[in-house]
């Protein structure tokens, strides 16, 4: 038995090398193979069946599952099937053998793992002699995926076309041939995957997706552009919602790099695009927004000041603080824009009162122009308002628009 198995693996390696296959399957029927009288006892029938089909499952990050289907000739009785690999990071403990053609009767009796070798031997029993379709699956390292997006906005920045690419990275010296691939969402893809190859595949394309270009004024999150002048940094984003109403929503959008372009507005067939920049797109669940950062706005100026801080004593040492935050908004663009004005209540209290180890009780005061926060996106600590800023006038002067937010911090001491 010992010499048999030794020579078997030897032969497997040799044949594997000759076929340039780094993952090799050898079938032995040591007890069923007739041998001539006087013939060497370790002469065995060795077959290296080709893969009939390969599936690559990439749905769980870090756990890429390869499933290969092969047709192997089995002898009646016990068969030794040797599976060996080299230069490939296969997790030995995850290798499975499943018979698809006769799962009830063709069964693995045991699996043997020789020491210090990337190989194992299945002892497979078969009730009959003949071919069996089997699937061998294993977790492999060096094969993974990443996502990439190309977003091409229309010239008016009202819609964009979004291409989602999945990139399969095969960093192993193993070629998987024509592989059926599933990245976890969307359609299954069938492509050849060669050794040490990266293949970029268009996974989905979404056309005419409505977008909103947002300008966000949020001191707590983005800080000042010019602290001395209290001028806020105003990041710009394309925001698209991953829902059916906007032509998306079939599956969550995975995180990945997004390159953003904009059409130059020329007639169809003549126009080109300009590169606006790139961003790491975060995971966007269904019904969530995907925000693509475009840079910091230069044509929108928002100056934030604390216009009023009135302390009103209520009972004993308790006081309410009546605070008015003033936002002066100037839009130097020739298009009207919508600005998201956000205020952190904790940030505001720290600014006017300092930190205190207490929850904050507050209400919206009646004096501010900002009265109706976005109900879905506001919380007990952050209020968000949407403010329209008109385009600059014909005289090229921006109209200064002033908004005020009245917050009353209650029962402070």
């Amino acid at each position, binding site marked *: 038995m010992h010499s048999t198995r030794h020579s078997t693996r030897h032969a497997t390696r040799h044949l594997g090398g000759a076929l340039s296959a780094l993952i090799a399957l050898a079938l032995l029927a040591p007890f069923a193979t007739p041998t001539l009288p006087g013939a060497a006892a370790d002469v065995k029938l060795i077959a290296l069946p080709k893969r009939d089909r390969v599936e690559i499952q990439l749905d769980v990050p870090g756990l890429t*599952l390869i499933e290969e289907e092969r047709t192997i000739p089995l002898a009646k009785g016990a068969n030794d099937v040797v599976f060996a690999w080299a230069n490939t990071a296969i997790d030995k*403990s995850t290798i499975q053998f499943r018979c698809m053609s006769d799962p009830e009767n063709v069964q693995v009796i045991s699996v043997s793992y020789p020491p*210090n070798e990337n190989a194992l031997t299945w002892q497979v*029993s078969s009730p009959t002699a003949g071919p069996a379709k089997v699937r061998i699956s294993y977790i492999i390292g060096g094969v993974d995926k990443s996502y990439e997006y190309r977003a091409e906005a229309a010239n008016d920045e009202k819609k964009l076309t979004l291409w989602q690419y999945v990139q399969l990275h095969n960093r192993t010296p193993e070629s998987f041939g024509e592989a059926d691939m599933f990245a976890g969402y969307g359609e*299954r893809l069938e492509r050849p995957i060669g050794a040490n190859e990266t293949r970029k595949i268009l996974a989905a394309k979404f056309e005419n997706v409505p977008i909103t270009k947002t300008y966000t004024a949020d001191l707590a999150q983005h800080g000042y552009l010019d602290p001395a002048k209290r001028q806020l940094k105003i990041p710009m984003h394309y925001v698209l919602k991953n829902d059916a109403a906007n032509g998306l929503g079939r599956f969550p959008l995975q995180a990945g790099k997004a390159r953003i372009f904009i059409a130059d507005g020329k007639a169809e067939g003549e126009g080109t695009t300009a590169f606006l920049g790139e961003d790491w797109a975060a995971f966007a669940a269904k019904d969530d927004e995907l925000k693509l950062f475009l840079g910091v706005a230069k044509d929108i100026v928002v100056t934030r000041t604390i216009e009023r801080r009135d302390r009103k004593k209520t009972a*004993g040492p308790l006081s309410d603080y009546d605070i008015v935050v003033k936002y002066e908004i100037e839009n130097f663009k020739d298009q009207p824009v919508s600005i998201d004005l956000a205020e952190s209540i904790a940030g505001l209290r720290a600014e006017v009162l300092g930190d205190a180890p207490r929850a*904050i009780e507050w209400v919206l005061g009646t004096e501010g122009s900002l009265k109706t926060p976005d109900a879905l996106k506001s919380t007990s600590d952050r209020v968000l308002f949407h403010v329209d800023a008109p385009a600059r006038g014909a005289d090229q002067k921006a109209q200064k628009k002033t908004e005020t937010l009245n917050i009353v911090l209650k029962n402070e001491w």
Partner: protein
Amino acid sequence: MWKKLLSVPIALAIAWTAPAQNIDVSTLPPRDSVQLTIYNSEDITLVRETRHVTVKQGDNVLQFSWANTLIDPSSLSLTFLERANDLELVDTVFPHGRPQALYWNVRSKFDGEAVVAISYFTSGITWTADYVGITSDDESSMTFDGYVTIANNSGDDYADASVRLVVGTINLVERIRDLASRGLVPPAAVLESESRMRDMPAPAAEAAKAVLADALMERKEKEIVKQGLSEYFIFTVPGEETIRNGHAKRMRLFEGTKVPVTTVYRYRPMEYGDQLVKLFLVRNDKSSTLGDSPLPDGAVRLFRRQPTGGLSVIAFVPTKYVPIGQEFEFNLGRDPQVIFERLATRTWRDDFWFKRGDQQKLYSPTKGDKVNDNDTVVGWNDHEARLERVRNYRGAPINVEFRFPISGDVTFVSSLDPTLFDFRTPDFKTTVKSGERKDLAYELVSRQGTNATQNAVKLEAAK
């Protein structure tokens, strides 16, 4: 290269104190049988082997050596299986300078053959369990197969061994591997002779392989026998297995053909961290086509059957020991199809109490007391309105369970029909339909300062 040898020196009539001087010819009786009892809680295996030895009337010396193995010399024992009344183990000698050898001085009343059993502990032979579960498309059931893998790194080959695997925890005061490497302090009387031994030809072993080869033609998958013993459970592998040093062998322990699976989502930060996790719940009982034995701890690999016939990975998770009849769970982590948010929507305070100077009396404006600027706030209630928001994008309703501890003197006000898991941990559950966004609202009233009289959570129905 021989590693572990039992030899019977030919010169049998040598005095006990200096046996086997210059003995250079010995016969090595082969093992008749060997049984391995392998524990998984500690690195310990009980080996019991039987051998035939030839003895002469009078005093005999049996030498046992175990070079390059991990045998605990303090555990070696010799017993006589036949004619025990005519054989006596007089003593055991651990010779100086040979830490991996001993001599058994045996007194016999007869000339002839004796059957002995030698048992000892060794380390380096281990077994582990692992499991493979494959769920149906809708994840309502799965096949769940258990496997055991025996690995031999003891330094010795065990051919044609009967194998028993023990599930359960045993108590050891010293590690066998340490004992094997440290050896015993030899007695003053030393045995300095070195024996050169030769292996007895073992045609029987070759014959056995041939028999095994024939048997393999008809061989089916072995069904491992499960049997309870005291606090332990023993899995016995039918027949015999050959496990060479450095090799490992994996066999199926059981086959769960149609195991019902209950899927539940839980937010329990004490158990699963600060996230909503998806769990499969399974019970180890007959109705689940399991329950023949406890499930030893081991790695679980869960897959989902794809319409193509292929598999996709759900999760690779560990499981702990599962007694017969107990429900166990697989934590699958976050489900990207189920979005969970915890939101605080509003906070406010009331019921203030004040202290004035060194007075013991406390003042409350809501009770009609007048308070002064120099009074100190010593008690109040914090109110926080919260939402647990769950969005379900799966194709079926999901059951979601919440259990999280809250510190302080707190009233949990809600219409969620909660119960208390313990004095500070509300527990409530809901069902979220496919495509639904569900907000579970509640209010926490936390009594602070002098208002706090307990450190516990009370439940109150929302008005």
